[in-house]
């Protein structure tokens, strides 16, 4: 690879339809947002290098509808990290997110970094899921939680940077991972609470 020391990292986005998975990716990779993002069928693929952390994200953005769930294992297999996205204005989408967390936990990959993103934070007026509830759930399950808005770009960079930070370093393996900890790792140090927005 041209950039020395840049490590590829497979990242997958999961979550209910219309939660904003593609929009988060588009905002992160291209800095763009569109009100009507074309529905994803199967999965979309994008890459983005974060030189600061020497990571090249290979991002799989999946389709959200429940029946597409049966395709998902193909996309999350071998992933280093997953972002589970829900829409803060929809409790259904939050429940769906919990379903994804359970599924990933059952895959039995303790190294997998899992983030929970409460998207559409700009629609706080129509909020249906309280940040406290999501934070509590994330703490119980060892997830990194943050509320984001792909529309206003609030916390989008933070979300991906935090994941980049937590990825295992190529040689000196995770003796001192970043400040927020990868709790799914078996031998991870005790977790600190991550403040959301």
């Amino acid at each position, binding site marked *: 690879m041209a950039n020395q020391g840049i490590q590829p990292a497979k990242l997958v986005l999961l979550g209910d*339809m219309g939660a904003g998975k593609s929009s988060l990716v588009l905002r992160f990779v291209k800095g763009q947002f569109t009100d009507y993002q074309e*529905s994803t*069928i199967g999965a979309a693929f994008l890459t983005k290098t974060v030189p600061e952390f020497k990571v090249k994200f290979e991002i799989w953005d999946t389709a959200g509808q429940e*029946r597409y769930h049966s395709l998902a294992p*193909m*996309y999350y297999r071998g992933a280093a990290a997953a972002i589970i996205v829900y829409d803060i204005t929809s409790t259904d989408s939050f429940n769906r997110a919990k*379903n994804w967390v359970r599924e990933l936990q059952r895959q039995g990959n303790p190294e997998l970094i899992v983030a929970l993103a409460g998207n559409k934070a700009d629609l706080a007026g129509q909020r249906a899921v309280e940040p406290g509830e999501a934070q509590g759930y994330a703490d119980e399950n060892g997830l990194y939680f943050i509320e984001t808005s792909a529309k206003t770009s609030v916390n989008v960079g933070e979300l991906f940077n935090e994941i980049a930070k937590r990825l295992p370093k190529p040689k000196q393996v995770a003796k001192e991972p970043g400040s927020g900890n990868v709790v799914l790792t078996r031998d991870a140090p005790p977790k600190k609470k991550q403040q959301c927005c």
Partner: protein
Amino acid sequence: MSGGASQEAEPTAGSPPEAHTSSVHGSRDQENGGGTGGAKLDYYSHEVVFKANERSERERAYQSTLASYNESSNTWEAHRERIHRILGKFVDREKETISKKEWRFIKDLCRRGIPFSERPRAWFVLCGAAEEKRKSPVTYSALLAKVAKDLDEKVARQIEGDINRTFPAHEVFQSPKGTEVLKNVLSVFALVHPDVGYAQGLNFVAGMLILVCGCKAEDDIFWMLTAIVQKRMYPNTYGEDLKGCHVGQKIFDRLVQNKFPKVFKHFESLGCELSLVTSEWLLCLFSRSFPSETVARIWDSLLFEGFKIFYRVSLGFIRLLHDKILQCDNLGDLITFMKEEVRSCVNNEQVMRRAFHGIGSMRSKVIIKYAIRYESEVEAMLDLYAQKKRERRSQGKDDGENDQSDDVM
């Protein structure tokens, strides 16, 4: 319908064969700055990325198609009349009176590309929609009238959520009429087919029909969507857990393995399944992936001959990119390369030539054999999957959750 697309999509009475060739669209090309590459609109007013030289190659391809029409009929008028006469036989339950020569004429017409102006009617007849519509005891408008009362609320919400997410950059779907037609057609489809309901992917298939046939054809578009899903796509493509999609994909993988073993191994060595690229092709019959004029050209034969054309075209496309695929030495480059090639594939003549003449024989017997094998493999896989899903649910209930986010089938 509003805007330039609609004017072009309407078949013009007595239009010359140029109706689907360069001259009629020449003005559009000029409006968009000529053939210097970059993003432009294709013949169905869809934005597409033209590569340098692609445009002139495409023009040449159309010219040769045009020349071949002139060989087969003395004049365009005579040619068009012949198309109408034979299509009429399909509609009037006179299929048995269609001679072998006429069947061959239609098959040939579809494989070479149906003239732009004849496409809406030809599709309606050849995909079996005309027959569906005639056989149905209820009319489309009667079904549409039931939607408000009888369509499951959750399904309606899912449709609503995708209406503005179907070809959102296209002017037709920025107009209230376009989105209304799309919503109506999908809603009636979901009502009539409770086993499918609404599946993401259907929106793009219906959207493509709207682009080609125009909003005025709402009724016919519904019957086309019905006929295509029932008779032209892999059975159960949109059913529970997308079972048919899994099977169709496996058959396709196997065909690639047989015909292009190097490509198959290359994907394997990069830890990548072909379906990462091709499941979108299968679920939308290419409509979300390729430029719409290429999709239309593929559908010309797919809607007549059926799903095997999907295999042919996909294999033809892989054949076209064969050597370049092998040069991609990491997964990211490979996927990006393929997606870009697909998006800019305006020279459909090139793809179709490979599909019909560049991949060798593809016998139905062999495909059926694979279908039987993979049906049972996929069933076993999905049984296992269903069991896991039940376990997750019961765990969820233990946690005091009420997950109502599942599809309504």
